[in-house]
């Protein structure tokens, strides 16, 4: 075996003509030239490794940066009032009062989850949880937004089984409740599933930590798992490349996660924070040590000296370049004052976590890395981490879009009687995207830690943060790729208002947004146009609603062959509630309560579940967005929750009115009688629209009889349109749609809960 001879800075200067495989690392010729210009010589192989991973789409946001700026520009003072940390850090931090703050973020792990669904999804959870730890918070819950291919495609079974077991394995081992998320099936995700993992953590204001390396002479410490050959180059090769159809599947080394090591790391980090042992901290994710050292140095005093020989290795044969690029999981990097090192190591030893001092913070403005006594990296860290390439990619209005929007579902004949409406309703209820997801969520532990107030199938998950006061947070994620395909600007706003309404329907007040923007290739001008429109829509929408985007991530190159996925901007909204005891469940429990519909109904069926499930159609325009109405309804729900005036709230989303009624019925198995005549009269719509239209800003609530007058007064006072549309019935065991049809509750349950098990096998605990 010949020993690997590292390429030194001296050697690089002396051999300028050496041929370097930059294209295999994902760098374009002009990007490589730019590195040479920055350094004034050719990069060493170590420097090339660092630049290639850090300048990859995944790490540098080079195609999205020019658009994402809007999230920082379209901001009102109202939006930053509660914001302690905004975009740019590992995760945003929001002040929720009583000295508490929460941090949350959603991130993609799409491509690894197609190659190796179990480990890909598991390490997705692990990665997002480390982002939360690195802010100084204790992780308290996770959620997942998932997209799979057609439910009846044979490969979907492999992917969904792997992804769901991976998430449940990692999350359950960590002891974190999985409180929500959403799942869609569509052939556009067949060879490119989406796995977007969200984590939320809680911290006291004074515990906030940031990722920067300040204080000359402070030590750079790597701790956690050892560094091995996992996922080398994963960041640039995996996340920024497209899976070519036909050819052999790309199967590079993926990462394997160890949730028990991560659990220990959480407790170890929290004790380090409590003991004031840490000045700055960064988790190691994509691009490993390359990313952590260059980002910490860029965000601090600007310089760092690292001896790579001090990295504890799992595999001693790793080369310097491999160590720089390794994506081994469950690692963290901390900046520690020298006099605190003993205390630091005492804590890591207590938790049986290995740690090694790699180097120190300097004020030279250079990141210098040594290996076997020679300098192999000498760069300005900002050129690696911050001032990477920025592209104004060409954009083009999609050639097919006008025809798609013109193909409205208005062409379909409307149902003429109760029997036909019933048939359509059951088709929607059992369709893959409307069906119950117990098959997935029953594999997750949603009660561990004992602070879960709401969880799937409730529209939002809710966690108690303060056990004394009951202060808590609610979270919901949403994205309707069908709407986004019809109109990415409106589609992104619809994802936002849906998540906002889900949070409001739990009784919480929406406060902040994190987004995970999943799109096709940015090199396709039509995809780039979709991306730009979606970001613009989301930024405009957040400004209208007065809630800031605090962070998130962008995932490009999601496509199968040449076909991009539907634009899927997953929006997570976080809200706070003074006392989780005042939460609103998503279903009614008592007999004889009145059901009220908030908001008005228009005939809006473009991109709807009705169009998809009944007519296998996608075309026309998605529903309109009305931010004032959304804010009004949310304000009303928050007031009603505070005064205890409503006993449940279910927002109307896909599937419309009847789908919301079904959620209300099935949550606790209590039937109801509903009527739609008054909706039809007041709003001038037919029965199909009254039952299935997906008009926004509508919520179905149940109100106890004794609170009826007060509740109606509240609606009048806040100018929220309201209609009494039904009564609950705990004795009949039936959902009656007056004058149209009856369905036994048991049959509703059978249809709604039968679809996933029919394809994937029995429900755990079901």
């Amino acid at each position, binding site marked *: 075996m010949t020993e690997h001879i590292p390429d030194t800075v001296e050697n690089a200067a002396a051999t300028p003509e050496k041929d370097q495989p930059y294209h295999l690392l994902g760098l374009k010729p002009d990007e490589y030239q730019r590195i040479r210009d920055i350094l004034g010589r050719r990069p060493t192989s170590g420097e090339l490794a660092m630049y290639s991973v850090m300048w990859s789409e995944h790490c540098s946001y080079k195609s999205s940066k020019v658009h994402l700026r809007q999230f920082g520009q379209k901001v009102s003072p109202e939006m930053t009032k509660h914001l302690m940390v905004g975009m740019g850090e590992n995760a945003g931090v929001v002040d929720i009062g009583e000295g508490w703050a929460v941090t949350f973020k959603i991130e993609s792990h799409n491509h690894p989850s197609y*190659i*190796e669904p179990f*480990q890909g999804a598991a390490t997705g959870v692990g990665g997002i949880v480390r982002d939360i730890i690195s802010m100084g918070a204790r992780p308290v819950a996770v959620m997942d937004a998932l997209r799979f291919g057609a439910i009846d495609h044979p490969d979907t079974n492999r992917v969904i089984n792997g992804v769901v077991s991976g998430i449940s394995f990692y999350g359950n081992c960590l002891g974190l409740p999985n409180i929500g998320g959403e799942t869609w099936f569509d052939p556009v995700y067949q060879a490119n599933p989406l796995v977007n993992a969200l984590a939320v953590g809680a911290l006291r204001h004074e515990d906030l930590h940031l990722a920067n390396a300040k204080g000359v002479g402070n030590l750079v410490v790597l701790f956690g*798992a050892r560094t*091995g*050959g*996992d996922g*080398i180059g994963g960041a640039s090769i995996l996340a920024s490349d497209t899976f070519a159809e036909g050819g052999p599947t790309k*199967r590079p*080394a*993926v*990462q*394997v*996660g*160890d949730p*028990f*090591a991560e659990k220990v790391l959480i407790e170890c980090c929290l004790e380090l924070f409590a003991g004031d042992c840490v000045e700055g901290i960064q988790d190691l994710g994509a691009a490993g040590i390359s990313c952590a050292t260059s980002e910490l140095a860029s965000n601090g005093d600007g310089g760092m000296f690292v001896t790579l020989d001090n990295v504890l290795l*799992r*595999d001693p044969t790793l080369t310097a370049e491999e160590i720089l690029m390794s994506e*081994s*999981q469950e690692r963290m990097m901390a900046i520690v004052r020298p006099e605190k090192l003993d205390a630091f190591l005492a804590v890591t030893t207590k938790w*049986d976590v290995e740690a090694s001092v790699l180097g120190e913070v300097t004020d030279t403005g250079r990141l210098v890395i040594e290996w076997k006594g020679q300098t192999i990296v000498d760069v300005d860290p900002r050129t690696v981490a911050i001032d990477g390439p920025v592209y104004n990619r060409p954009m083009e209005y999609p050639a097919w879009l006008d025809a798609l929007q013109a193909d409205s579902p208005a062409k379909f004949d409307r149902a003429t009687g109760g029997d036909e409406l019933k048939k359509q309703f059951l088709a929607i209820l059992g369709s893959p995207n409307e069906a119950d997801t117990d098959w997935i969520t029953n594999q997750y532990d949603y009660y561990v830690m004992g602070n879960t107030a709401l969880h799937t199938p409730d529209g939002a998950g809710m966690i108690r943060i303060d056990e004394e006061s009951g202060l808590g947070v609610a979270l919901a994620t949403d994205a309707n790729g069908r709407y986004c395909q019809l109109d990415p600007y409106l589609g992104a706003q619809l994802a936002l208002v849906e998540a906002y309404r889900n949070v409001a329907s739990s009784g919480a007040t929406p406060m902040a947004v994190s987004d995970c923007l999943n799109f096709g290739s940015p090199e396709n001008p039509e995809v780039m146009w979709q991306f730009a429109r979606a970001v613009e829509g989301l930024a405009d929408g957040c400004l209208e609603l007065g809630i800031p985007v605090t962070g998130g991530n962008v995932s490009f190159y999601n496509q199968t062959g040449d076909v991009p996925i539907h634009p899927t901007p997953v929006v997570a909204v976080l809200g706070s509630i003074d006392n989780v005891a005042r939460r609103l469940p998503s279903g009614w429990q008592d007999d004889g309560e009145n059901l009220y519909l908030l908001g008005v109904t228009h005939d809006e069926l473009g991109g709807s579940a009705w169009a998809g499930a009944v007519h296998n159609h996608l075309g026309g325009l998605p529903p309109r967005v009305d931010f004032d109405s959304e804010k009004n309804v949310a304000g009303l729900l928050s007031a009603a929750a505070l005064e205890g005036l409503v006993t449940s709230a279910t927002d109307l989303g896909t599937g419309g009115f009847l789908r919301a009624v079904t959620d209300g019925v099935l949550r606790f198995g209590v039937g109801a009688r509903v009527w739609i005549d008054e909706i039809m009269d007041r709003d001038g719509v037919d029965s199909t629209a009254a039952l299935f239209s997906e008009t926004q800003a509508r919520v179905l609530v149940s109100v106890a009889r004794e609170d009826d007058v007060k509740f109606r007064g509240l609606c009048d006072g806040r100018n929220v349109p309201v209609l009494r549309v039904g009564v609950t019935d705990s004795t009949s065991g039936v959902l009656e749609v007056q004058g149209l049809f009856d369905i036994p509750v048991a049959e509703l349950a059978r249809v709604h809960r039968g679809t996933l098990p029919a394809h994937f096998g029995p429900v755990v605990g079901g």
Partner: protein
Amino acid sequence: MATVIVDVMPKEVLLDPAGKATARALQRFGDGEITDVRIGKRFELTIDGEVTPKLLEHIGEIAKDVLSNEVIEDVVSIRVAD
């Protein structure tokens, strides 16, 4: 009746959490000379009849496609038991 034994190991470059935990436990018990443990799987396939080269080849395919996950594991040996 013959038995064919298939051994599957986690890929060398990848972390083996169970193996790592076992190694740490052994070291805690005082077995300092054991520096690493890797845990794999052994399959014993009972064959009705003779093991032909063709059958072994077929078992090779099964081992790769079904018994192991080639993304994270390697089939390290296939042999007929004595």
